[in-house]
């Protein structure tokens, strides 16, 4: 028995994820971060929605609420308004967070309520059978892009930065220790924080794109990401297909509910 087993709903095992799926690695990094932070299991709320990533927090033994597709951040916002003392973590996939929930993501970043959004990016809709996502790269094949993806790839980190996110970081499931540290920082940073976790989907993405070996896919992720320091040494052309990992934004904007309570002279006595 691992010391992390206490965070699992063991009666829900076996889980539904495909073999070689990278989402579990990202989820495990989050659990280790929570453990290191010593967060109270009863007052740390998991919010998730739909899709492969959206289903995973159900395996964790925290109070959890699973919403319709894309709506996790709206429900998380309400939880914080009702009880700002709670730690609220929202675990989403890329389609969930950036497509159907895209507007909520923008406004959560702008509003800056103390929430942590962890977005597992596998560049595909896995649960529904491999349709293209806003994060699918041009040219890649998907079940709804049989001729190749035409649209450009969305950079979620840039999007939330532009919207005003207080903390933005990118990690991946190869650099697992780093990913865990990024999550730890994001969870403890006050305000709206986002961690993008690059993961792999061998079943729905890899198979269609002639690279379904999980180890190869993870190696590709490793080669695609570089540190800020490495990026400084590269030319614009060399940076073309690279993604910078690490902390991308770290600000100290006023947290919404603290501001609300201050400006409105919120009456705590009768709340």
């Amino acid at each position: 028995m691992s010391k992390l087993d206490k965070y699992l709903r063991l009666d829900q095992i076996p889980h539904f994820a495909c073999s070689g799926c990278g989402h579990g690695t990202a989820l495990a990094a989050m659990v280790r971060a929570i453990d290191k932070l010593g967060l109270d299991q009863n007052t740390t709320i998991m919010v998730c929605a739909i899709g492969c990533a959206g289903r995973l927090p159900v395996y964790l033994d925290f109070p959890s609420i699973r919403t319709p597709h894309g709506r996790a951040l709206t429900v998380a916002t309400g939880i914080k308004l009702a009880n700002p003392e709670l730690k609220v973590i929202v675990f989403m996939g890329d389609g969930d967070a950036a497509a159907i929930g895209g507007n909520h993501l923008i406004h959560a970043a702008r509003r800056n309520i103390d929430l942590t959004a962890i977005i597992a990016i596998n560049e595909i809709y896995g649960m529904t059978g491999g349709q293209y996502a806003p994060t699918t790269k041009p040219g890649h094949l998907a079940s709804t892009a049989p001729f190749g993806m035409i649209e450009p790839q969305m950079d979620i980190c840039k999007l939330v930065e532009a919207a005003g996110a207080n903390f933005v970081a990118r990690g991946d499931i190869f650099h697992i220790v780093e990913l865990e540290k990024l999550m730890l920082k994001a969870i403890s940073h006050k305000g709206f924080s986002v961690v993008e976790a690059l993961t792999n989907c061998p079943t729905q993405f890899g198979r269609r794109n002639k690279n379904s070996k999980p180890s190869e896919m993870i190696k590709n992720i490793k080669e695609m990401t570089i540190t800020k320091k490495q990026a400084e040494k590269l030319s614009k052309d060399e940076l073309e297909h690279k993604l910078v990992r690490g902390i991308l934004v770290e600000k100290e904007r006023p947290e919404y509910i603290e501001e609300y309570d201050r400006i409105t002279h919120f009456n705590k006595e009768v709340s």
Partner: protein
Amino acid sequence: MSKKVLMQGNQAIAEAALVAGVKVCAGYPITPSTEVVELLSKKMPSYGGRFIQMEDEIASIGAIIGASAAGKKAMTATSGPGFSLMQELLGYAAMVEIPIVIYNAQRVGPSTGGATKPQQGDIMQTKWGSHGESPRIALSPSSVEEAYKLTITAFNLSEKYMVPVVILGDETLAHIRESITIPEPDSFEIINRRTDAVPQEEYLPYKVDDTRIPVLPPLGGGYRYNISGMIHGDKGVPNLAPDVIDYCIRRINNKLKKYYDDIVMVERIKEKGSRIAVLAYGSTTRPAKSAIKMAQKNGIKVDFIRPITIWPFPEREIREIASKVDKILVPEMNFEGQVAGLVRQSIEGAAEVIQFSKVSGLPMYAEEIYHQITKIDRGEK
């Protein structure tokens, strides 16, 4: 001491929500409901509550569901186009049995329709607007004073039965100003959801006792359970076993049936020897009552019934009236006769149902209803 005040319909709903104990309101501006969120944004902080304007109506209902899951009473206010957007999460709230209150000031539809004109076009959407089948309660106030009282009832029923409650007003009621009598806030019975959960070791969120109503402690309140819109058994985790699907759907849809007598409210005025009845609701109530008085003055006896609760529909009371009269006139501000259809369905031919439809965006007038009564009395169609 009760007090007499001049109040607008929307204002009454906001004021009553504060008395009922609303602690989170999330909304998005939309005519003709906006005064509710304007007022609550101003008043809630001093009542220990928080208002937030969200990015759209989907987010608004999402936020109040989250707030309620965390144990606080929560509401939103909207109108047709916003109510359409809320359907997804309205079904979710019903499925996961998280109490919320939605005020829908109905306006002319479809689509953008007419923001400043009344309609009663959302009766069916309220019950059937989201996919699948799930329970909700809908209340239809007919005056500002009743809007005040029913708002408190809405929160009470929502908490008691762990179900979304929709207050179905319309533009006329939203903006009319009336002198109303408000009882002392302390004189209202305020009901809060159950908190008597069994200890965590034995606790299963959707395992119900004889009441059939689940006990869902606030998220973060010490119980670790899962809330999910997926079909779930007692544990609250996804489970698609055929017997669990069957049980889940039947349980959530049956739970209000058990409490029909507590939930279903009607106003009934009986007239001895009448062969005609008028059924009206919401803001068509007052012109209907005036029309009945006009008829009585002219020697036509007319019964009256008003569903105060629209969902669940007062089938039993309407069957009773249908067994007495030959014809039931249903004046409505919609095209299809949404409530007239429900009346037909309830009484299964026991009386003739005559629909009177008005969709011009003007309120119903007493003379128009009276004219219909006289036609029926003369045996004309």
